[in-house]
């Protein structure tokens, strides 16, 4: 009777613990409906404190100018844009999971997509802070928007990759937010229907947008998901491509590199999945969702990490090769001296990057490692450190010693407000994430239910029994012939 299978028996179940629909609802809604734990409060307070420190840091910078950071006449971008690219990269996993995996009908995405999408939105929010506040005159930010104006009209410069960033990131944020929110609608409706308190009814009532669960709603919901997935899919590739253009289209040795678009996209997915791992390993434990976010999910994502990590590694080696093969004095200096040379002022940062991004993920060739939660968590942190350094290496070690040796810079270390700004975005990210885990279902309730009957372990087991039945028995059991 194997013809009756929805899914190969080889595939491990995506939902464990023999769940029924109701049980799924109960499990996933529990954290939302119960009082937050002590751990939640502690985590939330710490995040809020970080956020406040970030606010102070940014305030200092806005009042006194960018001189509050230790950037200088040679290094115009440092931690600010490094952090920007890093956060943007992190966002990419969410979009990849929700959009591309949806189009490829990857059922396992349902366990992680909600959290990953939320992470995308928060990460893009954090990322956006940097290009905004790295500006010397942030109050004139509207100059960067193309709209008919009374200043001439004076238009933006469509040649500038920074302007492309404005479009790319705002589009990305909008689409990601819509995707996330439209996916939330059925779950919000469940919460509304279960709500007992007045304010909960009101809040979820409004946010559920009048969702009734009618067939028409479901049909539209599915279509919308597909359309948004279609829109998001190119974004996964385009956003980081455009971010990479900030560097690739410039003339600075080390920036001016045609390999950047694919290399940045791979790196973004790499770091994004690492961040998803970091978050979910904790979330599933704390919220008791191990049966929905299973070790299988973790393993699949570790596979993505080793794949993208290796792509990034090849990109690094290609760059090195090209800088040698190209025989361009300036470019080879940027790579061989500024980066590869461990004794050069920033050589250490290159080797941290290499170690974290290329060497360490290689342990995931072993499935034992892929399925080890502690290792996974540790590796996810390591990868994100590595990917932060990748951006730092690209940005700082290229400009600090470029064409004219007269302008080579003194050693750049961040000031307290630069560090504060970065920590502040962590504060923003985790504050949002904590609120998200408290007020929204962390796992997509409706989507889990979609796959429950084909990938849930209870149903898989039932299928096993059916499997053993002969076809006559099966027909007999399931026919409406009541023993005539």
């Amino acid at each position, binding site marked *: 009777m194997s013809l009756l299978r929805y899914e190969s028996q080889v595939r491990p179940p995506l939902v464990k613990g023999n769940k029924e629909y109701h049980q799924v609802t109960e499990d996933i809604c529990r954290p939302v409906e119960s009082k937050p734990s002590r751990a939640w409060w502690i985590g939330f307070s710490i995040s809020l404190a970080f956020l406040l420190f970030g606010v102070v840091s940014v305030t200092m910078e806005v009042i006194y100018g960018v001189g509050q950071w230790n950037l200088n006449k040679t290094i115009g971008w440092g931690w600010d844009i490094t952090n920007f690219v890093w956060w943007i990269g992190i966002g990419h996993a969410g979009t990849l999971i929700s959009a591309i995996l949806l189009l490829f009908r990857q059922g396992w995405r349902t366990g992680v997509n909600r959290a990953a999408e939320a992470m995308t939105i928060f990460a893009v929010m954090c990322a956006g802070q940097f290009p905004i506040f790295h500006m*010397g005159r942030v109050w004139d930010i509207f100059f960067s928007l193309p709209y008919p104006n009374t200043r001439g009209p004076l238009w933006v410069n469509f040649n500038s990759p920074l302007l492309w960033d404005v479009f790319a990131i705002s589009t990305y944020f909008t689409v990601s937010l819509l995707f996330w929110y439209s996916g939330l609608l059925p779950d919000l409706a469940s919460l509304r229907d279960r709500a007992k308190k007045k304010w909960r009814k009101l809040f979820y009532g409004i946010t559920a947008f009048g969702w009734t669960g009618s067939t028409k709603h479901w049909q539209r919901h599915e279509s919308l998901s597909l359309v948004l997935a279609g829109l998001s899919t190119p974004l996964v590739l385009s956003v980081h491509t455009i971010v990479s253009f900030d560097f690739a289209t410039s*003339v600075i040795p080390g920036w001016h590199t045609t390999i950047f678009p694919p290399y940045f996209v791979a790196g973004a997915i790499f770091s994004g999945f690492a961040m998803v791992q970091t978050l979910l390993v904790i979330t599933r434990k704390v919220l008791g969702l191990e049966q929905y976010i299973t070790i299988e999910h973790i393993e699949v994502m570790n596979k993505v990490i080793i794949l993208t990590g290796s792509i990034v590694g090849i990109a690094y080696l290609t760059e090195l090769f090209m800088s040698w093969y190209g025989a361009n004095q*300036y470019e080879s200096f940027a790579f061989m001296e500024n980066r590869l040379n461990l004794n050069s002022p920033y050589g250490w940062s290159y080797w941290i990057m290499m170690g974290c991004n290329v060497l360490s993920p290689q342990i995931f060739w072993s499935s034992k490692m892929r399925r080890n939660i502690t290792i996974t968590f540790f590796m996810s942190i390591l990868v994100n450190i590595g990917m932060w350094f990748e951006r730092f290496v690209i940005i700082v070690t290229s400009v600090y010693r470029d064409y004219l040796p007269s302008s080579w810079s*003194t050693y750049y270390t961040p000031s307290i407000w630069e560090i504060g700004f970065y920590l502040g975005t962590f504060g923003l990210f985790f504050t949002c994430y904590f609120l998200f885990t408290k007020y929204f279902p962390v796992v997509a309730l409706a989507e889990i239910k979609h796959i429950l009957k084909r990938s849930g372990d209870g149903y898989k087991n039932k299928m096993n029994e059916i499997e053993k039945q002969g076809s006559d028995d099966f027909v007999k059991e399931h026919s409406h012939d009541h023993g005539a």
Partner: protein
Amino acid sequence: MSDNKYWQGFGELAATGEHEKRTQNEFQEDLPFEANNEKGWLDAATPRRDFLKYLGFSTAAASLAAGCRIPVKNAIPFGNKPAEISPGVAKYYATTYVQDGDAIPIVAKVRDGRPIKIEGNELSVFTKGGTNARAQASVLDLYDTYRLTHPKRKVGDKFEEVPTFEQLDELIINAMAGVSNPVLLTSTITSPSTKAVIAKYPSLKHIQYDADSFSGMLLANETCFGKRAIPSYNFEKAKVIVSFGADFLGTWLSPVEFSRQYVQQRKLKGGNLEMSKHFQFESYLSTTGASADERITHRPSETGALVLALYSVLDGSVSTPILDKKQKASIDKVAAELKAHRGNALVVCGSNDVAIQTIINGINELINAYGNAIDWSTTINCRQGIDKEMNELVDKMEAGQVGTLMIYGANPAYDYHAAEKFTSALKKVKVTISFTEKLDETSELCTFLVPTHHYLESWGETEPKSNHISFIQPTIHPLFKTRPYQTSLLKWSGNTNDYETYFKQYWIEKLGSSAAFDVALQNGVLESVSNNSTTGSFNKSGFNVAVASISSEKKGGNIELVLYQKVSMGTGKQAGNPWLQELPDPITKATWDNYAVMSMSMAKEILGIDLVKGKEREINKYEYFPEKPVVKITKDNKEIELPVLILPGMNANTIAVAVGYGRTGSLGKVVEGAGKNAFVFSSSNGVTTEYFSRNVSVTNTGKKYKVAQTQIHNSYEDRKEVVKETSLASFKKDPDQYKKFRDDLAKSYAPLTGDYRKEGTLYPDHAQPGLKWGMSVDMNSCVACGACVVACHAENNVPVVGKSEVVRYHDMHWLRIDRYFVSDKENADDLKSVVFQPMMCQHCDNAPCENVCPVAATNHSAEGMNQMAYNRCIGTRYCANNCPYKVRRFNWADYLGADSFPNNQDQKIVGKLDPVVHQMNDDLTRMVLNPDVTVRSRGVIEKCSFCVQRVQEGKLNAKKENRVLIDGDARTACMTACPTEAIVFGNVHDKESKISKARVENEQRLFYVIEQIHTLPNVNYLAKIRNTDDVEEVEHHEEVKTEAHH
């Protein structure tokens, strides 16, 4: 300025108390609230109406307050406009920059009654309009907030204001009554009328004292020529120039004049391959040494021996002192060159030793320099002080034989070799009077302070060279209660005239008519030039003494110390000038400090830092961090601690320390903490002052001190497209080597058309149909004097950021002079060449910065200029990152107080601003700002604009006169400041313009910096050629190995 009264109403005219009270009240009438009783408006008869009034008023007030970002300040227009003054149109007055003996004929640009910029006076035959950094910066001294604002006298320990000069005169005359032996101590005075004034003062003894003394030369000339004077030099006439420690392009005697002469032989124009040969013997790396073709380093105590050795090779009548092999070879080579160029050679020496200067005179006589490159028909008068007279004065003061000491321009308490002795001797003088602009170390000790005018407020004249008169006329009404010291002298000696009247009479009498005087004032200069160089009558009488004196010279100790002057600071008279403090030293690129300069080998020995073979991390630790090791230098009982800068080209046994630092805090907060006083290491040999020590001990203190450098890397890393420099021999062998690179570039990018410009890019070409501005910088002419850098500061309101910000690499210079060392591969201390490359915005026609600006704040003009729209700039710094020349500067903080944000200059945790930034924001100091140039606010990028305001002015003037623009209508500030015409600016489309000619005539040396990335700069450079014989292997670029940057 008249005493007009401006009034609005009769109340103000009558100045009634009621009116004043009313005007001080912002709202002159109360709002008609019906609740205008004590009860408050809620209890009023009609609270609703009052409420609406309050609401209306507060809304209006709030919106008004929100709308007014900047408080409105009213300017009062002229009641009766003088016919010759139009607001907004600059007037130019010929006058003279005077600082002690130094005098440079200048033209002061006066905008709306205030001088804002110094230009050279092109009518002067000896400077031809050249200036130096100090003259350029001097306009800022006028607006120094630390200037004395009124006469003062000392009561107890404190100075007390004396309300009027009449009262002061009375006090001083009373004090001087019955006191005999008045002495006037000044720095060199070159003004004939002032000397006449001094002569009129009964029984006044006048002593001249120079902080950088030329007594040795004056006395040697007295021995050899019977004249205590300095002849004039003409470096233009010398094919071979030998300098023994004379920094004649930087600080020696008359550097502006000498630089201009010097480069005439080094321009290599129009295929000319002949240039002068310049040998420099010195102990440290001076700016002159940096320009030399061959440098030989020696200990300062060996100068005499080297000079004598040269003499003996040339003459043979004296025995040669013992020299090491290398020095001997050099001396032989130099002697051969000198012999071969008899009559076309010149030897100068910076020593202040009579014996050495006597031998130098002998050498010059042997090589026929007199009557050729040295001219006795005109003398240089800018140094007249005789050290011995000063020493005698101090002895007399100590013995109580001086009753009154008046001091002008001299500051012995700071720069005298026995400053302590002077200070204690001064206490024994009954009446001490200081004529000074600012409190300094000496005037602090005097009883009476008689503030004098700044030169821009003064009348007068100078005669820096005989028969070369340059007049001084006021360009502004005196800002404070000051009086020329000549007037004081006239008053106290019983004359009724003030100096102004006296001066005018003196010159009208001399010139015959007041019309002639007016013409002379207008021209600024009155020069009668003799074209016949005279030899003077040389006699060898002092020779034996000199030879004996040199032969008995003691050998120096392990480490010797030499004092030197920086082009920016000189002897420190203008130390309170922020522009000069922030001007990077051309050699060390350091600002705001002095330091001990030592060779790499000495650094290895004393500090354990091996910059040659050491570990890369150790080297980087020295190079990439501003914290430099501090050493303690001890000589006898004097010691100072100074940070170390390690340079190539230093004598291995010598450390060099710049004088002019460590000034008193009463000069202003600017100088606080800026270096240490190195004059403590000067000493007297009984006759003259020596600016070196034969033996000092140097120990590593283990401390660190931040030195603010604007450039940290010294080598150009063999980057062929960044600077092009070679030896004359290689250039002769392959004169087309630079041109070939350019041709190859065109060939590889545009094999068919050869049009590199169009085919090197995907972007459309900027059409420049009419004018096209371009600049040419001749690296062979640049002597790194820094005049252009300061001129750029002054012209373009470039902010001063202070040491704390320079340390953070936040300096704002629009124009910088990049300096690269070329060392021997085997021995890094052995310096082969120093390359100076003035670097400013290259105004690329395919500018990387323009592409990347998201808001198009930087864009390209139809005349080829890269423009900045400051109020469009949002400060992403993308343009600065993408600029391959790194010339864009970001306003990291509100350096100039241009923001409407309140209290944004009181940073406390990060980026605390130095007091100098606040001083530069003072209302008085801000008077120096050029109203034609926007003062940039925090958060925007700025950079060289090709002085677009001057270009616009030139275009408008041409338009007003209904003619086409001609060459010279528009000149940048750097170009006009340059004494050597290294910088040429103009319209490239005009085939007759200087810039077009410079490019055509120097085609073989022409290059653009990193041209292969297709930025298409509008600034070209002319390669540096050293006149040496070593042939360097020329790499032939068969095919240009470059990466296409589109």
